[in-house]
């Protein structure tokens, strides 16, 4: 399967799209995540791996604007000036979450309106920003449904009538329609059959390549990380224990925990 292809130049731009410095979030005395710092450039896909309780979901929520970290800052460079996403008003942050970036949730029910048709779900971001031409909105929704391999004839069906894999793909379309620069994904293949996972991963891989998206993908599945990500951060007990090029972290792990993770998998 090929889409219209434009070579995705990994432009060595002067400034990163996302700059994260010293992000920490605590639950009382318990550490959610602590002292996380990294930069993300346009076109890069960063994986965050770790077991349950490693802090990866907490970190994702801090990065995506959902939960404010107790320490540190998250700078987003969507326009000319970098923006501390927690220093702007909640209104502005909500607007950014609907336009400049998107979140694909682990459970499609958290990311879709189950009572609204597929077309309505995909068109919502367009209507949020003021689009008022029904025909054009529908056309764009149809275009995106086809890009995520959902038959156009299902545009008026509700997500309840879709399989899990289709619901996930619908979520992706819903998020990408506003052409965000950055996409967060939380266990995008969790709960799906292996064959369905393969299809979804392939789709994600092509979309990331063709659209030059930057993405942050949280997963516990190293095969997903290997396939989709350029860089990898390994988390344990709320801390980043190792980070670097994905193939290097998986093939030549240095930290004890990373070595444990990679050796525990049958074939990666």
């Amino acid at each position, binding site marked *: 399967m090929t889409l219209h292809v434009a070579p995705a130049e990994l432009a060595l731009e002067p400034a990163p799209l996302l700059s994260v410095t010293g992000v920490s979030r605590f639950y009382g005395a318990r550490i959610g995540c602590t002292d996380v710092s990294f930069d993300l450039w346009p076109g890069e896909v960063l994986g965050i791996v770790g077991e349950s309780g490693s802090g990866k979901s907490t970190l994702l929520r801090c990065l995506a604007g959902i939960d404010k970290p107790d320490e540190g800052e998250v700078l987003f460079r969507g326009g000319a000036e970098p923006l501390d996403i927690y220093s702007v008003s909640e209104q502005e942050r909500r607007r950014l979450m609907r336009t400049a970036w998107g979140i694909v949730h682990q459970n499609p029910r958290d990311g879709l309106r189950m009572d609204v048709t597929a077309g309505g779900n995909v068109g919502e971001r367009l*209507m949020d920003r003021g689009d*008022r031409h029904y025909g054009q909105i529908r056309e764009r929704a149809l275009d995106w449904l086809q890009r995520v391999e959902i038959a156009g004839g299902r545009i*008026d069906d509700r997500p309840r009538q879709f399989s899990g894999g289709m619901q996930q793909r619908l979520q992706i379309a819903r998020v990408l329609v506003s052409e965000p620069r950055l996409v967060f994904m939380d266990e995008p293949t969790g709960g799906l059959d292996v064959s369905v996972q393969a299809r979804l991963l392939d789709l994600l891989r092509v979309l990331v390549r063709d659209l030059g998206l930057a993405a942050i993908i949280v997963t516990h599945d190293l095969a997903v990380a290997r396939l989709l990500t350029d860089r990898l951060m390994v988390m344990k007990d709320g801390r980043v224990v190792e980070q670097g090029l994905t193939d290097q972290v998986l093939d030549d792990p240095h930290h004890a925990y990373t070595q444990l993770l990679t050796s525990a998998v049958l074939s990666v």
Partner: protein
Amino acid sequence: MTIHQMPAKDTKPAYNYAYLDEQTKRMIRRALLKAVAVPGYQVPFGSREMPLARGWGTGGIQITAAIIGPADTLKVIDQGADDTTNAVSIRKFFERTADARTSEATDEATIIQTRHRIPEAPLKSGQVMVYQVPMPEPLRRLEPREAETRKMHAWAEYGLMQVKLYEDIARYGEITKTYDYPVMVNGRYVMAPSPIPKFDNPKMHMSPALQLFGAGREKRIYALPPYTSVRSLDFDDHPFRIQSWSQPCGLCGAADSYLDEVVIDDQGGRMFVCSDSHYCETRRAEGHRGTMLGDATASGLVEEKTP
């Protein structure tokens, strides 16, 4: 004695003028001022327990009670008619508690309290419309959480409302909402105009009258000051349209008013009649006659008033 100290005519316990105590009226007036200052914004208010159940117009009654005075003339309509049970009850309520002057003539009224219709006769500067509102929140069916809808209004996040209209068109080929049709007020707030038919929506736009909305059970007041822009929501390629009928009014022949369908016999015979009873009467008094007028008089549907 001042008017509010006079005992009621039939020795029942005395009420304060217009039933509500003065402090309550002040509270309601403050809410009204806020509402007028921010057109379309829902102002919470301390809705009182009234001598009738919620859902029977307590919001509208409280607003009327707060603003009515001895110089006012009150008209009350329900579904456009002055003579339905509820309209009659409410009118009597104010006659008793405020010794109010009442009228069925739209152009004579200074305050018009209405359930579910706007009169056909254009309103004038100096008149006040008081609407009875069951559900003030236009987004409620789409978003059940109050905390969320308040944020949506605060930040003008109305995409979801547009999604609802999209869904209608996708499902039925057109927007199916025919009453309580959501409007954009003053280019800023989306408002529920109360269950008036969408036919009446255009009358709200740039009206010379002051329009006040009261929801008693939900405890909200909102308002449209005179000459406010009110635009019904739609899509560029599916513009807002009002209803039309295949026949004019059977009694007065009006082709431009909102018609009710009335069953007139046991064989399913029907006729269409102006919902606005006073408008119809006025036209008949002016000599307009509809095709069914003869039958209607014969069957007692209409009292032929001797000129």
